[in-house]
């Protein structure tokens, strides 16, 4: 399903994605500036493939996706995926395609809005994610929203002559006892 509009601070808002947004996201994912910590930079870019994926996201009963708007321009997307409605757990993700806007706090505000929605509107008790430990901006934005390290996968991916480990984080609803945390990472 798609998420509703959520107004944030500093010009950031989450809004319902459009088919045009989806095409823009994929084109960003084909560029090196935004994909150092992303996938293989290869996609099916036929119009029917975009429409099929967009419909699939809209109809999904175990995910919520948003477009990220900054000063009324679409700059990326975020979402809660693989929602387990029994365990009330989900995986989160974020992609900002406008690399010229990195460092402006857009990810931090997006994650704050998304995490609050997970607790107050979806009734989830936990959200987790996987982030390249070398992607400091994304990791710190998640830590600001309360994510804490729960794992570190060695040699997750090899890129440009280096191994990148992958950081696993989790965050709990304030209404749920949080258990014993592994201390936050100091790597990166």
């Amino acid at each position, binding site marked *: 399903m798609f998420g509703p509009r959520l107004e944030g601070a500093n010009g950031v808002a989450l809004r319902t994605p459009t088919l045009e947004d989806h095409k823009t996201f994929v084109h960003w994912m084909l560029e090196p500036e935004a994909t150092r910590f992303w996938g293989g930079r290869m996609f099916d870019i036929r119009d029917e493939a975009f429409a099929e994926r967009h419909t699939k996201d809209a109809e999904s009963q175990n995910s919520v996706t948003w477009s990220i708007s900054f000063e009324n321009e679409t700059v990326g997307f975020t979402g809660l995926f693989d929602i387990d409605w029994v365990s009330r757990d989900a995986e989160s993700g974020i992609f900002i395609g406008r690399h010229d806007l990195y460092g402006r706090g857009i990810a931090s505000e997006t994650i704050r809005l998304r995490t609050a929605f997970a607790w107050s509107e979806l009734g989830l008790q936990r959200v987790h994610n996987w982030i390249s430990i070398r992607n400091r901006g994304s990791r710190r934005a998640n830590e600001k929203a309360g994510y804490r390290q729960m794992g570190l996968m060695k*040699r997750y991916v090899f890129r440009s002559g280096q191994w990148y480990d992958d950081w696993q984080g989790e965050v*709990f609803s304030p209404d749920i006892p*949080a258990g014993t945390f592994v201390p936050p990472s100091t790597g990166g």
Partner: protein
Amino acid sequence: MFGGTVRGKTTTLRVPRDADLDAHKRWAADMRVRRAGPIGRWHEPAASDTWKERWTEQAKDKTSVLWSIDAPDAAEQAVGYIRIRFEGAPHSDKVLLDQFVIDPDRSGRGYGWDAALTLHRWIFDYMHLRMAVVDRIAADDVGRQRILEKLGHQRFGHGHHVYYRDGAYVDQYLYQMELEAWDDRWSGEREYPPLGDEKAL
């Protein structure tokens, strides 16, 4: 996709057959299997027609592989199943173990260990993939933990309050095993004997 024959010592991974569908129906509805969490639950319980549709989808899916597990005392009946997924397909160098189920009525006979070793031989010796990952082991699932650790998996994560069942949350452990660990520990586990030096032929 469906996986082909990989022979172990006491079990064989083989192509799933229609005759296995009833066992899948039974396992999906068995609380002893389901309490393992996602590694024991490929799908929710359903009617036979739905299971056939699921198998058709599985056969078409190029990012995952399903095997049935045979054992000699089971008269051609599957004693379990394994389903893996290629992480980042189609350019994948990692395998995720999504489901790994042994019929609870045939547990305690070593089938789980032998099937897991056989699967890892396929992953590392035959496919020469870089890593096997299991990110869905319940913290109280000692049986699967022992199998993974005996194979050489390292625990790299601990999620808290992840799976809800029996009226409470249970934690989650995450494991990884790299090709180097396989080569160190299981260098004698080969699908085929070595070929001679070609120059000498």
